[in-house]
């Protein structure tokens, strides 16, 4: 059977690409390495509690905002119930060393006011920062659908300035700079390396509005998959694409690990661009491109502790909690830090449990080097030492969190610990990276087009991080296939 398009990977970007292409009358197949579609979004169950992995919350999802508009275009909005986060405090940033805390409200006006109260004397720095974030966010035609044309350049001034140097030019107050940069943890590129533009994409979306989805990442995955099936997309799950074949510079087919072949006229790949390089013919890309792709750095990996508590504390009701060890954000992801000195992102599970126990996750940066000894083993085959390592780490984290976040009840029971190996094994992410490639200052990210005609790339933070970034990336890539301005105009009709 020959398809019009084969999509590799069923993360958000792969699913959205498959839906768009299929809505346009193409015959589409999607190939996923994991046994189930959308492994990163779907989350998992432990002791009867459902835990989210790849989706907790997002910005720009209020009615009429950009993510909402994309979801309406895709026809999935009726199957998603929004959960509005606490508008007065969607994220708490807490520094136990001196008890400082900041409750981030949503809305530019409210943020401005809160920051003015907390940082007297810094009003002009705060105002300037917020103005640039808003301006940068709105200068992207894929985040600001009200823009008339999609013309953008390769280069912009704020793409070449690091968040850190931008902020140090505005203020000498290192706490203020740390507070404004803290959301880097949601895209994984440290403030000294990330550009103001990429920060603005993520922070700017949260400053607009903050939402979760009832039922969490699983509900989003299910809505996308239901739409995919409605459109008749063929699904090959539990199949690993091993080779992308081209002839005379044109894509022809993908080879799956067990000798299966999927032929198509075109291919959209949503797998990590560094992995992609090893799947195509050497000669298909210029040396300069290969070198550039291979030089992309991966975002940090993590340890994720899933835990049960007998009741959810108010600090996690429609809000998240960041436990911030110090002001050295550029060093936050260093594996040299003791686990007690790492930042923690703490969030409640999206699904309420009918019985008494409630779930929460605690996520901190982690590196493959810390679990290196077990990296060659398949998950079921890891020795007892690995389990002991995870148990020791879990015990330390329990003590640390209950000591420093008094609101978390002592009933906290850690049920499982995901490591960089877990992230690698479940999503084929190199080194277990959470968010694809690092979006560094001045780095030019891959265009959706490749040297192989008919082969396009998407996802993996190429256009931007997180769910919103993955959705934008899919629309951008499909725009290259279907005609950018046409697609954008159609989306604008859903505004």
């Amino acid at each position, binding site marked *: 059977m020959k398809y019009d398009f084969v999509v590799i990977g069923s993360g958000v970007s792969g699913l959205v690409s498959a839906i768009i292409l299929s809505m346009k009358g193409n015959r589409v197949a999607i190939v996923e390495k994991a046994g189930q579609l959308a492994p990163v979004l779907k989350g998992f169950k432990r002791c009867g509690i459902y835990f989210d992995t790849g989706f907790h919350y997002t910005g720009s999802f209020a009615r009429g905002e950009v993510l909402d508009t994309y979801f309406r275009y895709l026809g999935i909005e009726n199957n998603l119930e929004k959960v509005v986060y606490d508008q007065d405090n969607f994220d708490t940033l807490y520094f136990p060393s001196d008890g400082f805390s900041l409750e981030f409200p949503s809305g530019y006006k409210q943020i401005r006011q809160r920051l003015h109260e907390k940082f007297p004397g810094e009003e002009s720095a705060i105002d300037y920062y917020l103005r640039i974030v808003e301006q940068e966010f709105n200068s992207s035609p894929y985040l600001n659908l009200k823009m008339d044309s999609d013309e953008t*350049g*390769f*280069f912009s001034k704020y793409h*070449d300035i690091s968040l850190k140097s931008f902020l140090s030019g505005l203020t000498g107050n290192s706490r203020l700079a740390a507070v404004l940069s803290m959301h880097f943890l949601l895209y994984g590129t440290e403030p000294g390396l990330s550009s103001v533009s990429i920060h603005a994409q993520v922070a700017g979306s949260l400053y607009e509005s903050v939402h979760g989805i009832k039922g969490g990442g699983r509900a989003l995955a299910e809505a996308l998959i239901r739409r995919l099936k409605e459109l008749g997309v063929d699904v090959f799950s539990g199949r690993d694409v091993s080779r992308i074949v081209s002839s005379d510079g044109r894509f022809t087919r993908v080879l799956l690990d067990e000798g299966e072949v999927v032929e198509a006229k075109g291919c959209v790949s949503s797998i990590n661009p560094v992995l992609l390089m090893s799947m195509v013919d050497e000669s298909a890309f*210029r*040396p*300069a*491109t290969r*070198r*550039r792709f291979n030089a992309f750095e991966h975002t940090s990996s993590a340890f994720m502790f899933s835990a049960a508590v007998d009741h959810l504390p108010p600090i996690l009701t429609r809000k998240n909690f960041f436990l911030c060890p110090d002001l050295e954000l550029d060093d936050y992801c260093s594996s040299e830090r003791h686990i007690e000195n790492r930042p923690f992102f703490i969030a409640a599970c999206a699904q309420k449990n009918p019985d008494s126990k409630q779930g929460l996750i605690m996520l901190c940066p982690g590196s493959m080097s810390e679990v290196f000894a077990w990296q060659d083993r398949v998950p079921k085959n890891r020795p007892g030492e690995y389990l002991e390592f995870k148990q020791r780490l879990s015990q330390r984290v329990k003590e640390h969190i209950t000591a420093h976040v008094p609101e978390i009840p002592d009933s906290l029971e850690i049920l499982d610990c995901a490591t960089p190996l877990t992230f690698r094994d479940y999503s084929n992410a190199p080194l277990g990276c959470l968010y694809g490639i690092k979006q560094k200052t*001045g780095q*030019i990210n891959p*265009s959706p*087009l*490749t*040297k192989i005609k008919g082969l396009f790339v998407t996802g993996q933070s190429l256009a931007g991080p997180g769910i919103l970034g993955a959705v934008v990336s899919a629309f951008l890539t499909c725009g290259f296939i279907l005609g950018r301005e046409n697609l954008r105009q159609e989306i604008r009709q859903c505004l």
Partner: protein
Amino acid sequence: MIQQEIIDIVNRSLAEEFELETENMKPEAHLYKDLGLDSLDAVDMVIVLENAFGRKLRDEKAILKIQTLGDLYAFIEESRRNY
């Protein structure tokens, strides 16, 4: 008059990174029509030349106007003067 050094560095970098034949690399050679580069290569070309010359070359308007190798040499020469 463009310095020979600039010409040499540009030719060497492009030959190596884009697998171009050196004998085709004449100043009048059209990047797209004669040398087989395309708009996709423009981004990589900028990065390769930035590394070779150790300075930023991100003047989009000027880059869009470059058609021939000679234009490219002149662009580099100009960027050196503005640096």
